[in-house]
């Protein structure tokens, strides 16, 4: 790789592309795929289901390969890739008229964690409430709570202002808490 597009494989949390690549051909998209394929695949699986996740992820990386010259390096490479994957998932969802797959919780993980604070959460009720979220609320919940993106990164991926992300998250969590009976508790 050239100095114009330096990959940082040792620090996954740091921008993998430090600056905008001067020569798109110099950027190793294969290396990006090895680093971020799992995250992109899992995101796609939550958006369009496991049956189409591999197709969506592959198409996202092929799109990234074509568009790498336009990557400005202002965000993490993963954020950029998830933005591309998000668009691809939207396209597939429209094409196949998909209903969003369930966000499944694993109770065994709760038992293993021994976390007392979350013990009050009814997992079944939470899962049902997640299934009833609107598409916009579900999108920000996945990107922020599950993928771990910051508000700014969620905004970049979803293509909405940061204030909108904050508002959507607030209302999504309000909906989930209400479904769990949180507002009725003394």
């Amino acid at each position, binding site marked *: 790789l050239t100095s114009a597009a330096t990959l940082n494989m040792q620090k996954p949390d740091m921008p993998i592309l430090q600056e905008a690549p001067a020569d798109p051909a110099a950027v190793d998209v294969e290396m990006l795929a090895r680093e971020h394929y799992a995250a992109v695949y899992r995101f796609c699986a939550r958006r369009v289901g496991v049956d189409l996740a591999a197709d969506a992820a592959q198409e996202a*990386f092929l799109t990234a390969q074509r568009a790498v010259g336009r990557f400005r390096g202002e965000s993490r490479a993963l954020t950029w890739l998830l933005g591309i994957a998000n668009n691809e998932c939207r396209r597939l969802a429209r094409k196949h008229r998909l209903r969003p797959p369930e966000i499944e919780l694993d109770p065994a993980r709760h038992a293993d964690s021994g976390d007392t*604070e979350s013990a009050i959460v009814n997992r079944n009720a939470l899962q049902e409430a997640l299934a009833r979220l609107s598409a916009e609320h579900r999108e920000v919940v996945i990107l922020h709570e599950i993928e771990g993106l910051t508000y700014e990164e969620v905004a970049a991926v979803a293509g909405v202002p940061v204030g909108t992300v904050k508002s959507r998250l607030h209302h999504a969590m309000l909906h989930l808490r209400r479904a769990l009976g*949180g507002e009725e508790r003394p």
Partner: protein
Amino acid sequence: MNEREDLKALVDGELDPIRAAEVRSAAEADPGLGRELADLHAISQVLRTETIQAEPVGLEETLVALRRGPARKRMPFFVRMALPVAGVATVLLGVAVLLPQLVPSQDVALRSASLGAPASAPAAESAAVAADLDDAASPAVWEVRVARVDQAESQLRSYVALMPGASIESVVAGDVREVVLTVPADQQERMVEVVRELGDATPEAAAASPARVRPAPAPEVDQFERASERSSTGEPRVVRVRLVPHPDR
């Protein structure tokens, strides 16, 4: 500002320090806000730690696809569908343009000869020219190649001088001379014969007698005859003859 709306942002660490302190103080002072803060924290904790992660598949296939190089962007559906239609339309248009040249008929010959249009002129243009012939105000044009333009014009003038009521005007444009003939209705047949006589000249005869007009293609003769026939209502027929130097001269 409503502290409740900022509770989630407080849980996520997305507030600036001053605002975070304000919201935290409000939550400590208000038991309801405090419970909500705890609930939001618990829900986030469950989502972040207990969500089932799908096992990724397809990395190798993606790497193979990437190694093939940047793929061409897939064309939109309507473009993919339009391409075969456009191909068929092109073929049909080509046939429509070329067929009149391959299968000459009286009508087709008339079109290709009018206004000096070359035989390969597009059908649409020829059709427009043919339409012009139907307009009495738009004179027909007969392009003939001659050994010497000036002598050919003199020859025509001498013929016209012998025709009662006929007149001739000429316009010079470079080597080409366009002659506008006004032929009375009762002289049209005679004028056709004159042109036929000129048309009987062979290239050799034209070389021997420079004033003779080289034979014009048959379609042009037909055109002139048709023009004359159409103006048999008694009104003078205006015919333009374009005299062009013969290339073999």
